[in-house]
């Protein structure tokens, strides 16, 4: 479809005359953008889409960029907390029989490190990046269900605070990030520590499910006219697939944590073998979520890599269709692997073989993506800047982690190294290599869009090399010490085992990695205020987020772009084709058809509201109370219902009424 077709209205969906019939208030019309000069258009839109100044205004904001920025900063703070807990553990392990941290505190530390990195950092930060970028990349003015999106942030924030305040009160979970029963069950897990784990899960999963739904609907229904399925940027495809994986995986962990808290709080026996329950059921349910979780973190990172490589290789990513199909097949296959986390539980051999095969199978679409990226770089004219350096770091590290993954997929080897540092090394290679390096690259890449300023390239290169060397120095020797038999989750080890020197080396690597993040933080803070001005499109990239100013205005685009190519800004280098005819006095955006993205409806987007915050407070208080009493659900229902009614009840804005 060319922009000319749209202009002639040939491809417009047939308009059903819904507005003309029935008991509807007469449609109130307002000023449209057609024919408005740029200055008045921007004045109108700025007034319509602004987040009102002041504290109430800030707490009511539904602007996806503001919510995303809050998410990004909060997730960064949790990254620091998770990182510091890792540093504390490494100092404790730097020599045999050190007494810095006792076993109880150590148990809390590794559990908090795990839950923070997985639930409070990794998943929220990839989703937050999506909240910021997806609406811009698909050329719309706000995310779908903006109030739900704002609600999700408040829930996430309260879940994170809840977990870390518990840690400060010495009641943090201490049974590992997957909190296996029976250790976490009523018999062996006294106190409130496991309940904190269970409800922290509930908070963060509610939040991430809400974002997933908003992302899916934004991608399916709010794409700019002409952005048919084959023109969606690969990053947006990655976020779409990720969101679907979240929708089908996260309920599993919510079910798990709910079952656990029921067993602990009201005396059900779901995981109690003495009364017909089963402990392995917990592991099945947990890993049915837990394995897709890895891909929830990894798939968005592949999208970031695709964006960065296309921009710096100066050509679209090679094999678009293959890339999209790989993303989708990884999404599906990620649900067929969970049992490989349970090889040591004595499952039937046939089942184990099946999961070995599927674990090796997923290497194929992942490998295909890697080869497509290499082909893109091979064929392009790569310009090596910090974002691309991190992509190279990703290739090396993720491939190494993937190879140990293929090793671990085989049952005999897995049984040998189960619960050793070999596994710790493997999953840090996969998670840091597969997700954190692309995220760091993405930070350098999109920071100019978010702040309007470039990050320092020089500090960036120092950051990369320190991170890359520090990471490998810290984690590569863990493979070796794991093969020597050092178990995970021990707070110390005796001198006679001879693991002292290698652990000291690991700690030194960890310190270098930590310093690289200090440098990164300095770069972030310095560049946000003093960086060189970026302009709209500092990298001459091709996707729509670069078509608007940096940082983008509240309404994202003065006029909605019309898309003719998968890299719209490369296809239309001089002038951008745009759509006209939207109202400027209310928050109006374009709803398009799912496959072809024909413009279909002029829909109103929700106005700012304080109610999502109130709803989050009611929900959060209910969760908090529920670790003490099952009656929380009863007493919480009233306030939750009231806040939800406040949220949805129309207030007379045109956005509500028309």
């Amino acid at each position, binding site marked *: 479809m060319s922009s000319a077709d*749209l*202009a002639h*209205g040939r491809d417009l969906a047939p*308009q059903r005359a*819904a*507005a003309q019939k*029935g*008991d*509807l*208030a007469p449609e109130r019309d307002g000023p449209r953008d*057609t024919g408005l000069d740029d200055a008045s258009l921007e004045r109108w839109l700025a007034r319509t889409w602004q987040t009102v100044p002041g504290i109430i205004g800030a707490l009511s904001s539904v602007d996806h960029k503001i919510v995303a920025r809050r998410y990004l900063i909060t997730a960064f703070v949790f990254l620091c907390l998770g990182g510091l807990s890792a540093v504390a553990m490494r100092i404790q392990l730097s020599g045999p029989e050190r007494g810095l941290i006792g076993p109880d505190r150590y148990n809390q530390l590794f559990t908090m490190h795990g839950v923070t990195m997985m639930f409070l950092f990794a998943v929220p930060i990839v989703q937050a990046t999506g909240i910021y970028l997806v609406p811009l990349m698909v050329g719309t003015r706000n995310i779908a*269900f903006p109030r*739900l999106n704002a609600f999700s942030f408040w829930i996430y924030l309260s879940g994170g605070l809840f977990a870390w305040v518990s840690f400060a009160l010495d009641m943090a979970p201490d049974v590992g990030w997957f909190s296996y029963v029976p250790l976490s069950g009523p018999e062996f897990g006294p106190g409130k520590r496991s309940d904190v784990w269970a409800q922290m899960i509930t908070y963060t999963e509610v939040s991430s*499910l809400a974002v997933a*739904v*908003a992302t*899916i609907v934004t991608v399916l*229904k*709010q794409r700019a*006219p002409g952005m048919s399925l084959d023109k969606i940027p690969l990053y947006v495809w990655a976020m779409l697939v990720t969101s679907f994986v979240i929708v*089908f995986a996260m*309920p*599993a962990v919510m*079910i798990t944590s709910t079952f656990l808290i*029921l*067993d602990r709080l009201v*005396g*059900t*026996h*779901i995981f109690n073998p003495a009364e*017909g*329950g*089963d402990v392995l*059921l917990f592991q*099945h349910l947990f890993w049915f979520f837990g394995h897709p979780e890895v891909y929830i973190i990894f798939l968005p990172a592949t999208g970031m890599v695709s964006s960065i490589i296309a921009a710096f290789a100066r050509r679209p990513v090679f094999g678009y269709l293959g890339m999209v199909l790989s993303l989708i097949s990884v999404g599906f296959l990620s649900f067929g692997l969970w049992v490989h986390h349970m090889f040591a539980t004595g499952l039937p051999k046939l089942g184990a073989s099946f999961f070995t095969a599927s674990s090796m199978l997923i290497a194929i679409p992942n490998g295909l993506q890697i080869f497509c990226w290499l082909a893109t770089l091979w064929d392009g004219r790569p310009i090596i800047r910090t974002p691309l350096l991190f992509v190279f770091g990703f290739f090396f590290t993720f491939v190494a982690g993937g190879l140990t993954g293929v090793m671990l997929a085989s049952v005999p080897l897995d049984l040998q190294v189960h619960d050793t540092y070999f596994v710790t090394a493997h999953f840090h290679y996969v998670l840091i290599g597969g997700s954190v390096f692309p995220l760091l690259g993405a930070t350098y890449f999109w920071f100019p869009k978010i702040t309007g300023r470039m990050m320092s390239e020089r500090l960036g290169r120092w950051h990369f090399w320190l991170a890359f060397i520090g990471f490998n120095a810290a984690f590569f020797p863990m493979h070796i010490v794991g093969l020597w038999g050092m178990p995970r989750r021990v707070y110390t080890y005796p001198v006679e085992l001879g693991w002292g020197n290698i652990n000291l080396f690991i700690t030194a690597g960890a310190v270098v990695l930590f310093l690289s993040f200090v440098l990164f933080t300095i770069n972030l803070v310095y560049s946000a205020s003093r960086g060189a001005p970026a302009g*709209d499109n500092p990298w001459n990239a091709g996707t729509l987020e670069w*078509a608007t100013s940096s940082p983008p205005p509240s309404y994202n685009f003065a006029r909605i772009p*019309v898309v003719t190519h998968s890299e719209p*800004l490369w296809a239309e280098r*001089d*002038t951008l*084709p*745009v*759509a*006209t*005819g939207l109202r400027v006095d209310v928050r109006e955006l374009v*709803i398009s058809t*799912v496959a072809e993205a024909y*413009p*279909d*409806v*002029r829909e*109103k987007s929700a106005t700012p509201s304080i109610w999502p915050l109130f709803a989050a407070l009611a929900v959060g208080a209910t969760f908090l109370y529920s670790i003490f009493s099952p009656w929380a659900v009863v007493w919480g229902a009233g306030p939750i*219902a009231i806040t939800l*009614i406040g949220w949805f*009840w*129309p207030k007379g804005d045109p956005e*509500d*009424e*028309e």
Partner: protein
Amino acid sequence: MKQRPAADLSKLPTFGIGPRSPTWWGTLAFMALEGTGFALAAGAYLYLAYLSPEWPLGVPPPNHWPGTIVTLLLLASVVPNHILNRYAEACAMVPVRIGLIVMTLLGIAPLVVRWFEFPALNIYWDTNAYGSMLWVLLGLHTTHLITDVGDTLVLTVLMFTRHGYSGRRFGDVGDNVFYWDFVVATWIPIYLLIYWMPRLD
């Protein structure tokens, strides 16, 4: 970047119903994730039943009559539900108001019978894992039932105010119809699992 007008959207309608509306897709996504929750809870029930030497565990099977009455009520409610949908599509205010009142009542009726379902299970949640799973499955569905009845009630009140005369509101009625179908559809497998599976030999 310079711009040139390439498409005129001024004639587009201001609301769409069903799959044309983002809310419909959002509802579908929530159904998908809640449906996953139902499926996993059912899976956990079957997993424990498979491992257990006997099922039901130590007690007679539940009395199915309250559950059967709920099933019949829910199935019967589908007909007025879809009649309501047709009126919502036509944006016809009076029949929509009547339909919403009917659907509120048809939501409360199974809830009342549901009250008698719990004792009819013949076991408490803390007796053994079999009892726990029955209460979990029934509780999970009851939560959905209560939520949707609450939602229908608020929407009914809303449609009696001036805010009702809006295409978006009629779209909301359509989405409420859609969600009620989901509440009915998820009940059928749970009904079979709770009442009839323990009767299988």
